[in-house]
Each structure stands twice: as structure tokens, then as C-alpha cells.
């Protein structure tokens, strides 16, 4: 049974990736602007007091919102295109469908995150960017892994939950964008609220933040898998 779940999830995972690969506009429309933003953002914001942290939030913001949107669309959009009901009428379990879709969106989100961070890492490796002199590449990578990666899972899970409980793809996408925007604003607020912050990326606080987000990920994923019932997935918002 568990083997079937993973095998079936993998089938859906591959299906999602095949679809995205076949969508000719997806890659130039998402990866290119993210990489461009990754290249210029440190130069624009590096002089500010909280530069490294702020750039981190800004770099992650776009991939997070995009992966949440992709997750919501892969559920609500498929429901509207009437392909989801065909999947649900097959032998696949609701959990296999959801896990396959979510894992595909998570991997894509991680790739987008890496696309945003690569220009910063490369520039930093060639020579410190002004305002980023104290930024250690290893710490940046740890930030990506410990905080960025679970944040992508959080965005994807939330996108899927929103899609599961809303009546149409349009509403789901709108709410997902609002949620993503709020998340970025909250992250900004947290930067300014941090008392006496130096703007440095601290391994300890990154790890702690990562653990909190991971706990949220696990909670939301369990909630999502419990809420996934065929009737709800077909009937919209039911």
C-alpha cells in the first residue's frame, strides 16, 4: 500500500513536470526574471543596514510566491480543466495525487530559489559585493537550505490548501498571491522588529527559523492529506 502511494505519487510528479516542460512560456517567464533580480538586487540593497537579510527575503519572495501559485493551479486549475476528476476516477488515491503534485511544485520551487541565489553566490565568490563584505557563502547556502527550502514547502502546502477550499481557480490564485504577498511583508516586518539587529546572517537564528517553518510544514501537510477527500476535490470548496 505504501509502495503504491510512492509509486503513484511519482507518476503524478513526472506528469506535472512533463506538463511544465511542455509549457513553452513557463521557463523564460519565471527563471529569467528571477535570475536577473538575483543579479541586481544585492547591488540595489547592499548598502542598507540590513542588506543581506533584506536581500535574502527579496530573493526568496518571488520563488515562494511562484511555487505557491503553481501548487494552487495544479489543483484548482486541473479541477477547472476537468482533468482532476479523471485522475480521481482512476485507481489513484487522493493522497497520491496530492503528494505527487506537491512534491513536483516543491522541487520546482527549490530550483527557482536556487536560480535566484546563484547570481548572488557567484558574485560574492568573485569578490564581495558592496555592503555584503561580511556575508559568508557557506552561511548563505545554509540559509537557503535551512530556511528557504522549508519555506518553499510552506508556500506549496498553503497554495494547495487554499485551492482545496476555494470555489474556483481564479479565487484560489488570487488568495494565494495575497498570502504570498503577506508572507513577504511579514518577513520584512520581522527584519525591522529584530531588536539591535546587525543585518548579519546568523547560523543559529537561521536554524531556529528553519525548524519553526519545518514544524509548520509538517502540520500543514498532515492537515492537507487529512482534508483531501474526492468529493471536496471535485466539488470545489465543499
Amino acid at each position, binding site marked *: 500500500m505504501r509502495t503504491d502511494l510512492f509509486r503513484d505519487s511519482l507518476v503524478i510528479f513526472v506528469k506535472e513536470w512533463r*506538463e511544465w516542460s511542455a509549457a513553452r512560456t513557463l521557463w523564460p517567464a519565471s527563471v529569467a526574471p528571477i535570475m536577473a533580480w538575483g543579479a541586481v538586487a544585492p547591488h540595489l540593497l547592499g548598502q542598507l543596514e540590513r542588506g543581506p537579510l533584506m536581500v535574502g527575503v527579496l530573493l526568496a519572495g518571488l520563488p515562494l510566491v511562484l511555487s505557491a501559485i503553481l501548487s494552487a493551479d495544479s489543483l484548482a486549475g486541473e479541477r477547472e480543466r476537468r482533468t482532476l476528476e*479523471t485522475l480521481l*476516477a*482512476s485507481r489513484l488515491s487522493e493522497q497520491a495525487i496530492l503528494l505527487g503534485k506537491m512534491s513536483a511544485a516543491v522541487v520546482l520551487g527549490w530550483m527557482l530559489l536556487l536560480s535566484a541565489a546563484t547570481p548572488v553566490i557567484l558574485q560574492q565568490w568573485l569578490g564581495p559585493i558592496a555592503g555584503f563584505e561580511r556575508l559568508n557563502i557557506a552561511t548563505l547556502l545554509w540559509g537557503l537550505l535551512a530556511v528557504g527550502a522549508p519555506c518553499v514547502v510552506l508556500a506549496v502546502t498553503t497554495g494547495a490548501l487554499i485551492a482545496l477550499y476555494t470555489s474556483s481557480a481564479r479565487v484560489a490564485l488570487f488568495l494565494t498571491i495575497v498570502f504570498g504577498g503577506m508572507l513577504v511583508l511579514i518577513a520584512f516586518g520581522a527584519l525591522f522588529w529584530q531588536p539591535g539587529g546587525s543585518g548579519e546572517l546568523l547560523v543559529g537564528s537561521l536554524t531556529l527559523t528553519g525548524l519553526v517553518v519545518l514544524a509548520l510544514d509538517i502540520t500543514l501537510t498532515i492537515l492537507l492529506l487529512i482534508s483531501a477527500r474526492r468529493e471536496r476535490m471535485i*466539488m470545489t470548496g465543499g
Partner: protein
Amino acid sequence: MPPPAILTEQLTRTIGAKTIVDRVNLSVSTGVIFGVLGPMGAGKTTLIRLLLGLVEPTYGAAWVLGYNVRANADAVRAHTGVVLQSPGLYENLTAWENLDLFGRIWHLPTPERNERIRALLRHHGLWERRNERVADWSHGMKHKLAILRALMHRPKLLVLDEPTAGLDAVDRELLRTDLAVLARQEGVTALIATHDPAEAALCDEIVIMHKGRIVAAGSPDAIVCASAAKRRVMVTGHGFTAELVDLVQSRQDVTHAAIDEQGRLIIEVSAQAVCAAVVNLLVESGAAVDSVTRCNDDLATVYRTLVEETHEDRPVSR
């Protein structure tokens, strides 16, 4: 005698105060092509969803292929091929990729999967277009591919919601032939939901659904014959006055009489044998009768009549 492929008892589905499927009793024999005929909103799609365990019944029970739908919906779906109203294809993928995806979903081993896809595409004339994106195809071709997708795992039950919508005459005929072959040679039972009486007329057995209820059941011929209890005759001649119509209608064995736009007298009688007495009455009343013709009802007419009537009576069981 094999158990019925589909059996329902008082199957009911309500949403709020609205009853979508109302106490439906069905018994569909194995290996038949079974039609559910009804207008839009009759409850056909919900009935299909109930039979597949996609939605839960509010009341009643259903067994499909011997499995209780409420308790064992996974087993039902595992042996069923489904084409819903929309083809439900992944438009960015090619025809081959769409079939391959469902072959993987059904856990068909790679050699068998490839062979099956090849055979289905070749037999249905889509082989040459296997590497084209489905998005560029006509609606009819998409529908055809969706049906092939449903056949990938050689299901015991095939459920088709409006299967020939968008298909041209040739493809409709091919589909009907294929369904007949599947039903007879491989013992596959097909459940077809349709609003088209011509399509339903080709099924072995049908039910007519209206407002969630079954209002007629049986073979298409039997439904037409049963409806012919209300036989209509068309009388041509002169001297058909309103008083004469009232006089004819006053007979207990005449259910309805009216003069149509061409001046013909249309009479609905309870039995064909009444016709002679009615014609005698017309002649005795001074009308000149030139001809008397029996109106032959077909399934489309019967269906239209049944749907147009208000059904406050109890649902029909089959």
C-alpha cells in the same frame, strides 16, 4: 446467472434542499450496453459520480461489479474505465504521453503498455498523430483519445458520459461498433449517459431520467411500445369543428383530441381498437373522413413527451 454489473437501491443524493438523484433503483446485467437518457440537469453525471464513489450517497446503496460503492470504491474504480463529459486530457502532452500516463497509473508493465497504446492508436486511426500535442486537436479527436484512455487497462465496466458529443457520424458509428464488440466479445458492460435519443436507441437497455428520477425503463423498443398505449391517430377530411372535437374528447377512451395547423384531427386514444369507434362517431356527426393514419412514435418522441410531462408520481424501478 451472473450478478448484475450495477445494482442500486433507492440511491439518493441531495445538496441542501435540492435532490439531484432521487431514489434510483437500477439493475444492469453484465455485458450489456446500458443507456441513461435524460436532459441536462437530469442527474446523469451525479449518478455516475455516485456509482464511481466520487461522491457519497445521501441515502440508499449501490453495488458496482459486486463491490459496495460506499465501502469499496477503490475496487470499483480499479475495474472501471471512465470518460466524463469533458475529455479530461492533458493538452500540453501528446496523444502517446496521455495514454502512457494512464498506462502508468494502471501499473501496466512497460512492454504491455507500449503494445496496448500502439494497438489502440492504430485501430482507431490516431497512430500517425501520436506525437502531436492534444491541444491542437479537434474536439472529436480528443474525445476519441479519451475513450482510448478509458480502455487502456481493459476495464470490466466502461462509463461514458455523453460519449459521442463532438464526434462526426463516422466516428460515432465506429464507437458504437467498438462498444458492441467489447460488450459481446469481452463481456464489458458499458454505461452511457446521454441526452441524445438516437444514441440511447442503440443501447440494449435504457432508463430515462428526469429531475433525478427514473421515469421509464426497459429496452428502447419496450419503452416505445409501452408509451404507445397512448396511441395517436391522425384523421384527415372536412367538417372538423370545435364541437366535434369536444364530442370526441368526451369519450372515456380518448385522452386528447385537437385540430392541428393543417386542419387535421389528432386524437390520442387509449387503445388502437378504439379508432374504429371514433371514426364512426365522426362520420355519424356529419364529418367527412378521407384517411386515418397511425402516428408512429419513436424513442425521441417518447422521450420528449416524458420529459415535458410533470412527474409527480412515484419513480419507476427496473
